[in-house]
């Protein structure tokens, strides 16, 4: 496709097509519209983003800058070391465990396997007592957070500086939950203690379970809201694969098919060896 020339470069100078294209390329909104729209947007953000408002967006945008800079490194971050690899294996194991034994059981098992950190970032929810039988996508896991309990974004960002690479963020801690409770960990890229990792995973597992329960129960809006919060917090987790799979599932269940397909496509690119690969492919193959 890179060899495909722009039509403008090929059209005769006098052609009507060329004239229309040039017009379309140079079209702009009415003078002053940018400022007017920005003011209107600020008002809207003030009502939808509550206390965070534009300040939140600013912090989040810093995250975007970091991501832009780190985009090339992102594809390699998955192989960021034994710590992540080991945790990832555990995550897959947890996911399989969820599918086989039920969400609540696994969450409880994990919660007993290590000290549980205080919910500094996320107010945890109760693990579900049971898992609905109907599933379209194998049980993925995620580490969502309760939006209402989300701290100011700055507290999260403080743990993962804008300059940090995905690799640093991955090695800095196994989740944003750990990052929030250990302010200097991310910047120093210090290995997390096994206790912290286990506690974080157990917490994430419970949150994943809750998210799964919401989706299975039809509360896709709430599930997507929590996922949004999780994404917004920039949480990088060893369970990201499961979280992303759940995200696709939630979008699909919410009938937001275009988005589901988009993220399914991205999922395939990002996790080519995922156990959910075929599920995503099937979703993409659907009309």
């Amino acid at each position: 496709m890179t060899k495909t020339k722009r039509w403008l470069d090929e059209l005769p100078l006098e052609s009507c097509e060329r004239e229309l294209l040039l017009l379309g390329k140079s079209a702009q909104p009415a003078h002053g519209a940018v400022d007017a729209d920005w003011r209107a947007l600020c008002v809207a953000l003030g009502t939808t983003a509550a206390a965070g408002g534009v300040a939140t967006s600013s912090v989040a945008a810093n995250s975007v800058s970091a991501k832009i800079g780190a985009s090339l490194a992102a594809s390699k971050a998955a192989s960021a070391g034994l710590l992540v690899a080991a945790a990832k294996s555990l995550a897959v194991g947890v996911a399989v465990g969820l599918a086989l034994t039920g969400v609540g059981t696994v969450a409880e098992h994990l919660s007993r396997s290590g000290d549980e950190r205080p919910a500094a970032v996320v107010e945890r929810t109760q693990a579900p007592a049971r898992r609905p039988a109907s599933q379209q996508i194998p049980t993925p896991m995620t580490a969502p957070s309760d939006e209402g309990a989300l701290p100011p974004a700055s507290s999260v960002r403080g743990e993962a500086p804008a300059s940090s690479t995905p690799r640093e963020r991955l090695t800095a801690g196994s989740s944003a939950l750990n990052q929030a409770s250990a302010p200097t960990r991310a910047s120093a890229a210090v290995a997390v203690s096994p206790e912290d990792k286990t506690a974080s995973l157990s917490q994430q597992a419970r949150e994943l379970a809750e998210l799964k329960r919401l989706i299975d129960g039809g509360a896709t809006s709430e599930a997507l809201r929590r996922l949004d919060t999780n994404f917004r917090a920039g949480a990088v987790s060893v369970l990201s694969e499961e979280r992303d799979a759940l995200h696709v599932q939630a979008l699909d269940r919410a009938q937001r098919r275009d988005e589901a397909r988009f993220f399914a496509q991205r999922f395939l690119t990002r996790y080519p060896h995922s156990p959910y690969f075929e599920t995503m492919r099937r979703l993409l193959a659907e009309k």
Partner: protein
Amino acid sequence: MEFEELYRAHHDFVWRTLRRMGVGERDAMDAGQKVFLIAHRRLAMFDGRSTVKTWLCGIALRVASDYRRSAVVRREVLVADTPTDASREADQLQRLEGRERLAILDEILSEMPIEQRAVFVLFELEELSGEEIAALLAVPEGTVRSRLRLARRAFSKSVASRQHHQSVRLAAGGDS
């Protein structure tokens, strides 16, 4: 990058994309605001694998799609935005001035299947790469190429048709 900076850097692009993808002029502001509201809400989901422009473009395409769907129930508004009378089309092509020319452009675009329209707008007007468009629309690059080829053909055909109508009208006027 502050969100305002992101907004200002991409406002016109988002506005153009919405307009060329069928959002009426009077609704473009609201639709643009919706795009940036969604962007604000999902900022953390942006993973840097694409450009911010491409990411915003994906949101804008969806907002425009929603708009077109909802516009079915108020079709008369959309129709009122674009000329339908052949004689008026000829006049517009003859005068080729500002908004009317843009209206012609939009009308030509509106005649394309939406898949071709999206590729055409993004590649020819917004100069996204084929690779970016393919990723955005979740289609192979070959599909992007074929849609672009068809869209160009349709565009030229539509322009030729209008020129023909214009010449017929001019000839009729000259005879009278």
